[in-house]
């Protein structure tokens, strides 16, 4: 019984984290999947969201900036706004860059951002991070507080899915994909490509910021390491590619799937003898890379492929579509 309860709590935690990653992946899907923007700085927007809400919702502390004790909801909204604003600034400079240069630029900006978080100790408490971030429902008894958090995360994922799926099927999604497919032709069709790209970049970043805020509230703690390229950017990219780029369901499924692989391998690696533990961290990355290989060989476009409007099935866009 004890053990069963442990598994239950673990599963709730696993799914909550998977759901938070689904938020991040949905954000990246807008940028890369719909619009073809190679954002390699997911971690940066994640961190902006996480730190914004941390500063706004914690109690006053001498260790870090902020301490306004705002409700978590306000913190999440502010996280989205902050990420959107930074994204606007980044996009104004970088959005005209060719895909590969955009990747380098965003990766660089995210790294600079992480170093600032690490070194501006007066504001961020440096590498020790910000702790005691309030968690929604934490006054509820165990395990209901965890379950409530899971439900909150899933509700957010569902709402996002609904909104983004409508956006994807609308002319908005169509024009974004047109830009992804052929920039010159989109311009020749009278589309203000730069403006639309900036819009997609900002929307995606705002959602990543929300993901960061959820993460901060969920684990009640945030430090600059959580904004490392591997744990944030790399994982989210793998999730999107495996699940199926340009497909919102794919983004969610990919996040849940890859997160499960990622965290269950952690169970294994932490049980290894200490002299192995360090190597094991790389083994995990290797394993995820291997999963990526295997899945992409079986499903080249990801598990769920991109779906386009078909006149014969417009009334009901059915699911599936993983066959080539």
């Amino acid at each position: 019984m004890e053990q069963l309860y442990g598994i239950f709590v673990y599963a709730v935690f696993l799914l909550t984290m998977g759901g938070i990653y689904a938020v991040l992946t949905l954000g990246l899907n807008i940028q890369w999947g719909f619009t073809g923007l190679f954002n390699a700085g997911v971690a940066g927007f994640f961190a902006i969201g996480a730190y914004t809400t941390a500063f706004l919702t914690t109690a006053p502390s001498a260790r870090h900036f902020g301490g306004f004790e705002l409700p978590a909801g306000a913190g999440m909204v502010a996280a989205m706004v902050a990420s959107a604003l930074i994204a606007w600034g980044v996009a104004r400079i970088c959005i005209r860059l060719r895909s590969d240069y955009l990747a380098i630029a965003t990766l660089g900006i995210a790294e600079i951002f992480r170093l600032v978080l690490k070194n501006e100790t007066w504001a961020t408490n440096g590498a020790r991070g910000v702790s005691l971030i309030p968690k929604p429902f934490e006054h509820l008894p165990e395990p209901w507080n965890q379950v409530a958090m899971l439900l909150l995360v899933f509700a957010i994922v569902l709402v996002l899915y609904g909104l983004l799926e409508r956006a994807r099927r609308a002319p908005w999604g169509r024009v974004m994909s047109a830009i992804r497919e052929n920039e010159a032709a989109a311009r020749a069709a009278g589309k203000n490509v730069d403006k639309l790209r900036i819009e997609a970049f900002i929307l995606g970043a705002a959602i990543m910021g929300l993901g960061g805020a959820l993460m901060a509230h969920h684990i009640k703690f945030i430090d600059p390491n959580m904004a490392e390229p591997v744990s944030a950017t790399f994982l989210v990219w793998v999730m999107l590619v495996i699940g199926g780029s340009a497909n919102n369901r794919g983004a969610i499924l990919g996040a849940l799937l890859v997160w499960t692989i990622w965290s269950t391998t952690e169970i294994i690696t932490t049980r290894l003898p200490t002299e192995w533990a360090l190597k094991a961290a790389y083994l995990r990355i290797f394993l995820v890379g291997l999963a990526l290989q295997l899945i992409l060989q079986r499903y080249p476009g990801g598990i769920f492929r991109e779906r386009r409007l078909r006149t014969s099935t417009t009334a009901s866009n059915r699911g599936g579509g993983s066959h080539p």
Partner: protein
Amino acid sequence: MDTNPDRTVSGAAAPPILAVEALTRSFGGLTAVDRCSFRVDAGRITGIIGPNGAGKTTIFNMVAGALPPSSGRILFDGDDVSSLPTHELFHRGIVRTFQIPHEFGRLTVLENLMVVPTSQPGERLWRVWTSPARVRRREREVWERAEDTLRFLTLWDLRDELATNLSGGQKKLLELGRAMMTEPRLVLLDEPGAGVNPTLLVKLRDMIRQLNQRRGYTFVIIEHDMDLIASLCERVIVLAEGSVLTEGTMDAVRRDPRVIDAYLGGGGEGGAAHGG
């Protein structure tokens, strides 16, 4: 079959819809367009011919805002539009097609056309979320227009196909289809006939003529198919080595020894030496 007798011949005094003045564009050491000047009269179909590499496409790229000129001016309706971005020129009424088809590969054929029309409320995110009925209404209009266009181009059966899977000629038609989804004032067609089958080519020619006569669209057509040019255009501009060699009716141009020379010389030094 040849020239249309009841075509109105406007006086030379009417201001041109497009004027290109000393337009120049170099790529590194190569001057692709060299102090090129010409005018396009409103309401007419003007042809541009010239050997490969004469700079025809480069001129279109500059007029459509895809490529900044090195020097010179482009006047549209009397306004200097030389530095305007493509989408703004589009909204002023300049529409172009590409010599090498630029399809939206992983969009369906139908979607390729539905992207084009302006004032689609569904391109605004908050409208998508707040006024879906309005979005749907406009979407229906856009759909119907795309359907008409595809039926005309004999591509309707391929509407659900991804554009990347079309044949070269079909992509060429789709290219034209996108231009037909708007209400342009000036249409720049870059080799519309290349790769299109003869039956359809006749239809295409009639369509261009119809759009010109009924809707008053001004056309500039780059073409290597001299018969197509001869049957559509009363005025032809001949380009060689980046500038205007001569212009006039197709018949006059065809007989011009410099033109023959330019084509035979392949635009190389030999041709130019003979010409000069």
